[in-house]
């Protein structure tokens, strides 16, 4: 279904759509080219797919192109991805040559003669070597580069410094660079299947299908079953809280790939110990309605990550009016105003304590949920993200 900007009037802050239209007036017919590595299956692709028609509706001549590359290029990009996020991997000289050469080949077929070019992430960063004299170039980094492997960052940096500006998702991702660095938070789409309003009937039938009774307060964590999301820690926190407050725990998500994924799932099942009030629900990432329904059915949403990128699941829960208890990691701290929209915690005990606080104070939980929704409305919706891009384009084209 094609979504129009006016469809967002009902959900975005009052007057904000009109402001977007006025901001865009100065950018009318300006050519903006955005380049990423994937057309489907990633958060960046999802964002660009929704953004591009909205920018076009605002009068910006926006295009989205994707670079192509063979297996060697994909392997080089994957290794670089791991290294930039601080993991161990190998990035050989041969891989570097493949990486640069593939970008050179792509540059020949791309319409780079444009007012602004925005390159998303590391895969297409070397395209900047083909930049024409005219036009402004922005590198948009969606990765968590807070603690990159230094050699990998140094390699990428030689391209990044040739841009006119860089954009990161969190202040802690910013680097020492001689170009301006802007902060733009990622966003959620309130009209998507994952976030749209659901009827009570839809929520109930989804819970029935998943075999989750709605007879007691539901604690929910939605995330990949990965060590960094600390699902076992969530089960331990639930156990402590359960001594005083009857509740259910739902851990929904998909196992991480390979042996590590199987191991963490086994650990979760062991920790759950057959407790009928603990539900480990395996869902593919495409299960948007199910995730939406679970978030709406929950009394408290938990995101007890020990390591996290931005963690947009927090914004999704906030948008559904839920108080959130989050680990002190990544973008969770940017989304939760402590004691106002939720709590950040540093331990299992801290998580258990806050579960109790919220279950024992339903009025507080409701107020936090309301405030969380308002905070999400102003900061984490796609309309805010669009405005930030318009502001960025305006600033660059001055």
């Amino acid at each position, binding site marked *: 279904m094609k979504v129009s900007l006016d469809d967002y009037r009902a959900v975005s802050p009052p007057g904000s759509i009109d*402001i977007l239209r006025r901001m865009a007036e100065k950018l009318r017919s300006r050519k903006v080219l955005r380049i990423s590595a994937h057309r489907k299956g990633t958060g960046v692709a999802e964002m660009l797919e929704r953004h591009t028609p909205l920018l076009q509706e605002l009068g910006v001549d926006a295009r989205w192109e994707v670079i192509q590359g063979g297996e060697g290029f994909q392997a080089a990009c994957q290794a670089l991805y791991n290294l930039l996020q601080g993991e161990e991997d190998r990035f050989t000289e041969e891989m570097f040559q493949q990486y640069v050469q593939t970008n050179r080949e792509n540059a020949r077929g791309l319409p780079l003669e444009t007012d602004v070019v925005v390159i998303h992430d590391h895969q297409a960063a070397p395209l900047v070597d083909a930049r024409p004299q005219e036009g402004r170039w922005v590198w948009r980094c969606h990765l968590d580069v807070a603690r990159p492997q230094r050699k990998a960052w140094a390699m990428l940096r030689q391209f990044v410094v040739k841009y006119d500006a860089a954009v990161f998702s969190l202040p802690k991702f910013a680097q020492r660079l001689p170009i301006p660095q802007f902060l733009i938070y990622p966003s959620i789409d309130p009209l998507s299947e994952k976030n749209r309003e659901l009827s009570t009937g839809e929520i109930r039938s989804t819970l029935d299908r998943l075999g989750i009774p709605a007879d007691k307060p539901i604690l929910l964590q939605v995330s990949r079953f990965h060590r960094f999301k600390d699902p076992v820690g969530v089960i331990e926190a639930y156990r402590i809280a359960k001594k005083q407050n009857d509740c259910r725990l739902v851990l929904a998500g998909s196992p991480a790939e390979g042996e590590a994924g199987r191991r963490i799932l086994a650990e979760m099942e062991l920790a759950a110990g057959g407790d009928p009030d603990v539900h480990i629900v395996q869902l593919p990432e495409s299960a948007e309605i199910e995730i939406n329904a679970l978030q709406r059915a929950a009394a408290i949403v938990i995101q007890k990550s020990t390591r996290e990128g931005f963690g947009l699941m927090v914004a999704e829960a906030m948008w559904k009016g839920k108080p959130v208890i989050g680990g002190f990691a990544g973008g969770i701290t940017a989304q939760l105003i402590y004691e106002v929209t939720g709590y950040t915690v540093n331990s299992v005990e801290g998580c258990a304590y806050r579960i109790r606080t919220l279950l024992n104070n339903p009025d507080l939980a409701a107020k936090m949920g309301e405030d969380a929704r308002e905070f999400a409305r102003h900061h984490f919706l796609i309309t805010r993200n669009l*405005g930030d891009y318009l502001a960025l384009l305006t600033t660059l084209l001055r």
Partner: protein
Amino acid sequence: MGGKNGEAKHPFQFMACWELREMLGRRAADVPELLEGLEEVPLDSIYFHTHSYFLRHPYIAGPYPNDFANWAAIQLRDRVLGERLAVIDPFEAGDLEALRNELVTILDDHLSHVGSVPRVVFGEFFFFMQSRILAVPAGIKVRTLAELREGLERVDASAIYFHVFDALARKGRRRSDFAVWIEDGLGRKELAAKFSAVNPYATTLERVRRRLIALCDEAERAGSAS
């Protein structure tokens, strides 16, 4: 001066605004580093952490009304410092340079009284940022007090921010744009003084809006009673 029937010769045009956030790539892990940063960052960074805080929190106030106080109390877990920084009033400070001076003085004094310097352990570093404020016409022009009241009621909260906070801090004025227009455009000096007396830093943008609307209502009532 005010024209016929309380109508200003020159209309007041509401401007909304959008903040583009720029990272300075500088951070602090303890009070000495915060102090050093405060002394060196551009004034737009002081502005970001003490003023546009209100733009980012138009409806909901955090525990304290500026980023420095929140960081000290929550991330550094130095509640005394958080409280001392929270009570700073930019309205009283006057301009951004004076505000910087006051912040530096508090940090310096705090350092001279603490035995050991706490450092971020579990919390986050302080990241210095700065604002780039883009003014955007809000599409509302008014010529009378009644129209101003109506405009205040329906304009985006960022316009309240732009005409009050931005006017006071970045344009270095002692009065908000509203107060200037009420006096110069409508010729209502007393009401302008009341608008000027509203301390916007004591509350949220939405409450500032409500207070300004209430002042318009009081003035209208007084006008119809006399």
